[in-house]
């Protein structure tokens, strides 16, 4: 038998880093975003032959070119952030809540329903409070159901919450068909367009002031909740090891259900903000994939809500920019998803260089940073 063993040591080996200074970690992350922008630039250039710098300039125009555009960018970033905040406790608990999409939709449906049936019958502040409450409840229910099964039988929550999305989408389709306006359009149209009943009022002279206020409160609140409360501590323990949690006398089922109720409720509230504070209508695209994007926001920020603010803005900036270049250079909007994908791939990949170092043959240690 011949023996095929070479006499060299391997070209490249990988070893886990013991620790890394925070500035290095951030440098790697920033480098990855730069790399992503270069890759996206190459993509744009390959497709259109346009100067990528011009394109990026146009993107900045699209996101912040006017006061109106800036506010829309802020509004959408707040929306994404809100969902990310909702997902943070669930993911910190290592509960794969892929179901934000559905939780947003049921929250949105509940909101829209109250807007339609009680618009004009109740004063707007009361109506708004009522709508917020039902959206919280609807989202919480959508979050609790998979949690109960996970707690009782260990049912895989990734797949369960995923399926719950589609149940929610069909319920939304049902509601859209029910509330169709005008008949035959297959849309609900802008609800209470004349009366603006149940719409967010202007705050600080801005249409979206209330959106910002609500999400800012949630950002700070969730940060404090996870870091300083007993429940936040329980979530961290459960996320690290279920056995340790049981050992510490933590009731897993209670924490699962409670945390998913919170997670679902905040996502439901995001649906409320989307309907009452932004689009004033409901459709199956009200969530628009943001439930999935927000998972990545929460994950990459390591559940730190302030880091989430940055990531949300980055992603929304890209989307708005891409829409702008699409119109300006006659491409289509989906370019934004391509660029988002490239950037996320790069950021996800960069985590590797933060956690591991590379050792090349003949060298004692080398690494990306």
């Amino acid at each position, binding site marked *: *038998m011949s*023996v*095929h*063993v*070479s*006499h*060299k*040591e*391997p070209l490249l*080996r990988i*070893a*886990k*880093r*013991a*620790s890394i200074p925070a500035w290095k970690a951030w440098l790697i992350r920033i480098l990855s975003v730069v790399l992503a922008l270069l890759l996206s630039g190459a993509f744009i250039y390959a497709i259109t032959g346009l100067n990528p710098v011009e394109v990026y300039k146009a993107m900045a125009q699209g996101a912040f070119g006017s006061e109106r555009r800036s506010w829309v960018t802020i509004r959408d970033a707040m929306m994404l952030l809100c969902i990310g905040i909702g997902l943070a406790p669930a993911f910190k608990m290592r509960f794969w809540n892929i179901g934000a999409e559905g939780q947003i939709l049921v929250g949105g449906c509940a909101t829209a329903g109250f807007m339609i049936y009680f618009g004009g019958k109740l004063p707007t502040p009361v109506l708004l409070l009522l709508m917020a409450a039902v959206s919280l409840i609807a989202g919480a229910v959508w979050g609790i159901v998979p949690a109960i099964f996970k707690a009782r039988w260990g049912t895989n929550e990734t797949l369960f919450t995923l399926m719950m999305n589609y149940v929610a989408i069909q319920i939304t389709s049902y509601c859209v068909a029910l509330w169709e306006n005008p008949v035959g359009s297959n849309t609900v149209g802008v609800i209470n367009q004349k009366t603006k009943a149940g719409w967010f009022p202007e705050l600080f002279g801005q249409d979206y002031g209330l959106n910002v206020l609500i999400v800012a409160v949630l950002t700070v609140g969730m940060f404090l909740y996870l870091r*300083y*409360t*007993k*429940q*936040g*501590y*329980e979530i*961290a*323990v459960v996320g*690290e*090891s279920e*056995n*340790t949690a*049981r*050992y*510490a*006398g*933590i*009731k897993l089922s209670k924490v699962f259900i409670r945390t998913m109720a919170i997670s679902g409720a905040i996502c439901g509230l995001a649906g409320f903000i989307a309907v009452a504070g932004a689009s004033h209508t409901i459709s199956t695209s009200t969530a628009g994939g943001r439930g999935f994007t927000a998972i990545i926001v929460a994950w990459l920020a390591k559940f730190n809500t302030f880091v989430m603010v940055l990531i949300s803005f980055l992603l929304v900036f890209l989307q708005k920019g891409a829409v702008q270049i699409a119109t300006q250079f006659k491409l289509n909007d989906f370019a934004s998803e391509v660029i988002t994908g490239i950037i996320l791939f790069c950021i996800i990949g960069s985590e590797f260089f933060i956690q591991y170092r590379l050792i090349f043959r003949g060298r004692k240690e080398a690494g990306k940073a």
Partner: protein
Amino acid sequence: MRGITKTFGPIVANHKVDLEIRRGEILSLLGENGSGKTTLMNMLSGIYFPDEGEILVGGQSVAIRSPKDAFDLKIGMIHQHFKLVDVLTAAENIVLGLREPGGLNLKAAAARIREICGRYGFQVDPEQKVYDMSVSQKQTVEIVKVLYRGADILILDEPTAVLTPQETEKLFDVLRNMKADGKAVVIITHKLHEVMEISDRVAVLRKGEYIGDVATSETSPQALTDMMVGRAVSLNIERPLVETRNLRLEVKDLSVRTAEGVLALDNVTFQAYGGEILGVAGISGSGQKELLEAIAGLQSALPGAHIIYHPPAPDEPVAGRHVPVDRAGEELVGKDPLQIRRIGVSMAFVPEDRLGMGLVGSMGMPDNMMLKSYRAGHGPLADRRPSRALAQKVKEELEVVTPSLSTPVRRLSGGNVQKVLVGRELASSPTLLMTAYAVRGLDINTSYTIYRLLNEQKKQGAAVIFVGEDLDVLLELCDRILVLCAGHVNGVVDARTATKEEVGLLMTRLKKEGEQA
């Protein structure tokens, strides 16, 4: 192997090790836990790659980059944790990864397996699924797997740790047959009597460094111990006698079925007293884990069981540790850990799986200190001040080596992890203290620190239940030893008078129906 060095982050597992393995010889690789034996052998079998040094096989320098390279060099390793796929059959596991000519032919493979078994006197059913097998059956499959591949160099990592003495004897016979066949056999162990019995030559590692090798016939257990630990250590463990012993825990007819449906404990009955250390002996997997977890409220007992906790009387030294209640005995069956704590039972539990159960690996010392006490105080906020103070205290008193208090405990060495865990558990001033394999993987000094701490608790009147694996330690440390065998209590002996053979026999002999304990 020449000048082999391997590091894991800041930890040096092997430092400039030279080792020679000869055909037709059984070599024992001796060393304490954590001395780098397994790491060294993993570099031969392609699991790790050395940072420095060179490996020569048959005089040729080679690079073993993967297990496949090792197989090509006819090196086969039987790991301590079996590398078998549960849902596959024995035959499927054995042919796994092979690149024989032709398609997959399990029938032919089964025939060859039976042939190998016949030659060495093994018993393997090629069709049996691994998840249906006993530990020793799984080990047999592992050995057949290596032989099936035509290995000339066999490495066995602590093969006897999970076997009964009878099974060990059988294994040793097989190893001798292999030696007669001209194969080189390396057996990793820290059990001296086995070294003396089976091997021709002994190589000793200490703290990752190669100390030397000697022919077995020219050495003695005492000399080997000296090589292993570096200095002659008194094996005497302190055993104070506490005069007043009061009943603390009564376990009656405790049966536990695991989630997999296995009856792990069968009608276990015993008592534990304050002021004594009750040892629990048994080969691994005899129900030790389930016993402690049932008492701690982590495993549910089958109907009919009673676990009665007796609070200390007012005149006992530990009385102040108990939140006074009126009742004479507290039933613990059916209560979860929190409820047990709420009725005033001060129970400390050092579980076997330190980072997977006792501690939160990603958190620093202070956050780990509050694992059981974070609920203290009113309001939704967790008060971190007491836990920070406690962490500082534990660090100083037990000499925990850590870069800073906030360093995740996962990054600490095994001994320091255990100190953090034990420190927290003892800080709760327990009246009942349970430890599972408290010194596993620890160096001699830390082990003695743990023994001292346990004895202190005992002197203060706590009831200590010490689940151990090293019979010498059990016999020297404990007052009484309860012997478990396959979920049964096979006997409770006085550790001051019992012999090792006596306990060993109880560990392995299944009680027959109607026989007296």
